[in-house]
């Protein structure tokens, strides 16, 4: 009797969720190669490392305590926050101009703009950083041209500075920001803009009173993504910056690959993820509010 109820429930469930069957392979793949490794990683971060890369399987908080009480790593976190802040502040106007240009363009222009945004988005980050290295190096084009026209006497040291890291990250994050903002801009009903113009608002006023507020969800999501990515950046600070500009991600990589202290390296990595999740949580609280304001 009981068995048949179980079987019946199973049959109902089977019927109800049968349509999800094609999604099973990818879910299993992600469980095996994403969720399970993440759990193992969390486990390691609570273990203790002995000498020569060996690991003692005990439960201890000391990796996290060491990370969050060491003034050196607190400075790393603070500097990365400052870096991510500057990158976000610069990416918003930079990306907005591109997204607005894409939105108001038509036909072949739009295709061309798309191409100009997607080409750097997909091109290997190392290639783009290599380009910045050539540009900013002491013998590079910017220094030589400035010297030729007599603006400077000595080469400026532009590479390995905070602005170099910021500009590298802005050009890295901007294409994604543009696509997110663009998808929000396309949702704006053009009648609102026509109405504002008909009622005598200037184009500037229309922009600041209609388009900017309506595009806010895109600016916030894109800005949050930019913040997260530059906070978790790896390649750009290594190639365009000095060790003083290193982010938690770089320190995690050093601990894992060079120093071979896996428990401490994973603890840095997990802390990074937790901070990212907090930012995402804040975003999920802010964006719906903006959406609901929009309906009014």
């Amino acid at each position, binding site marked *: 009797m009981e068995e048949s109820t179980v079987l019946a429930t199973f049959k109902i469930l089977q019927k109800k969720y049968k349509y*999800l069957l*094609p*999604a099973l*392979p*990818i*879910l299993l*793949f*992600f469980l095996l*190669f*994403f969720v*399970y*490794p*993440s759990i193992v*990683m969390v486990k390691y971060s609570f273990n203790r490392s002995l000498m020569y890369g060996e690991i003692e399987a005990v439960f201890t908080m000391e990796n996290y305590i060491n990370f969050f009480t060491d003034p050196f790593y607190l400075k790393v976190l603070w500097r990365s926050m400052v870096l991510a802040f500057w990158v976000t502040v610069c990416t918003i106007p*930079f990306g907005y*101009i*591109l997204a607005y240009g894409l939105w108001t363009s038509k036909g072949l222009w*739009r*295709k061309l703009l798309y*191409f*100009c945004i*997607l*080409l*750097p988005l*997909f*091109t*290997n*980050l*190392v*290639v783009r950083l*290599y*380009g910045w*290295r*050539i*540009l900013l*190096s002491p*013998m590079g084009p910017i220094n030589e*041209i400035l010297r030729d026209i007599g603006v400077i006497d000595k080469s400026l040291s532009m590479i390995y500075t905070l602005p170099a890291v910021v500009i590298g990250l802005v*050009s890295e994050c*901007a*294409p994604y920001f543009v*696509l*997110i903002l*663009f*998808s929000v801009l396309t949702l704006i009903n053009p009648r609102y803009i026509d109405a504002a113009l008909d009622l005598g608002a200037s*184009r*500037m006023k229309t922009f600041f009173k209609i388009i900017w507020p309506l595009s806010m969800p895109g600016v916030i999501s894109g800005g949050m993504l930019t913040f997260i*990515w530059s906070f*978790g950046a*790896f*390649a750009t600070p290594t190639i365009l910056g000095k060790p003083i500009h290193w982010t938690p991600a770089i320190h*995690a*990589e050093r601990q*894992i690959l060079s120093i071979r202290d*896996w428990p401490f390296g*994973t603890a840095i*990595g997990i802390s*990074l*993820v937790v901070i990212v999740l907090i930012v*995402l949580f804040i975003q999920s609280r802010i964006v719906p509010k903006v959406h609901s304001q929009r309906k009014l």
Partner: protein
Amino acid sequence: MSDHQDQRVSTYRKPFDWNRLVFNIFLVIVLFILLVPILIVIFSSFSGKDHLSWPFTDLTFRWYIEVLNRPLWVKTFINSLITAGLTTFFSLVLATPAAFALSKRTDKREVRFLSSFITWPIMMPPVILGIALLIFLSRIGLRGSYLAIAIGHTLWAAPLVFITMVAVFERFNPIYIMAAKDLGANDFQAFMKVTIPMVKSGIISAMFLAFVISTQEFIIALFLYSPSTITLPVELYTAIKDELSPGISAISVYMIGIVAVGLFVIDRVIGIENVGFSGKG
């Protein structure tokens, strides 16, 4: 008739839009900043000198041929092609059926949850994916294989293929599947014989998307490679730290070429505007 139309348009327009002019100047500057690293790499690859110092003179094509004779770079290039091929295969086989199933009932809670679960890996910093996979794959002895790098890249490429394919399937009319089923096909047959051929163009673009992503990715690969499977971007990453040379630039231009060709194909097949990045991800 058309003259009349044009006149009507022109009276609505202001004689000259200063705002637009100023905006376009800004747009050109921003585009320039976005593209200048790529342009300078292309330009520097033609430099005739051995080292890269401005101005680039004695322009030449010889680096493009010269780098093809460096066995290290040829090997890393082949490694990249192998991992990209595996990644493309995994991403398509895994993400296409899932996109098909989950594109239909987006109003359901479990569907929305699963869709967002599939896009989680792209929200993670790639360093974290690299570390997690490094630990797990070295336990099961896969670390350093092509398969290991391909698995890592699939975590990144499959969600993007998924987003693209969901968009493709949302535009797909299910009436054809009903017709196939009426004529006696089962679910699997209908999917393989009707759905797949009808969304072929979407699949081709998703293929190029996965392929391009894998050939360009290097952070996950940095944790998983071994000397025999090192990919081109990883080798490039170690090379550019201490070397600026036209040869490296020529290799970089080959990489840019892969992306340009990929984007061109995607544009031909489904239109560049449909690349599945927009929003949600």
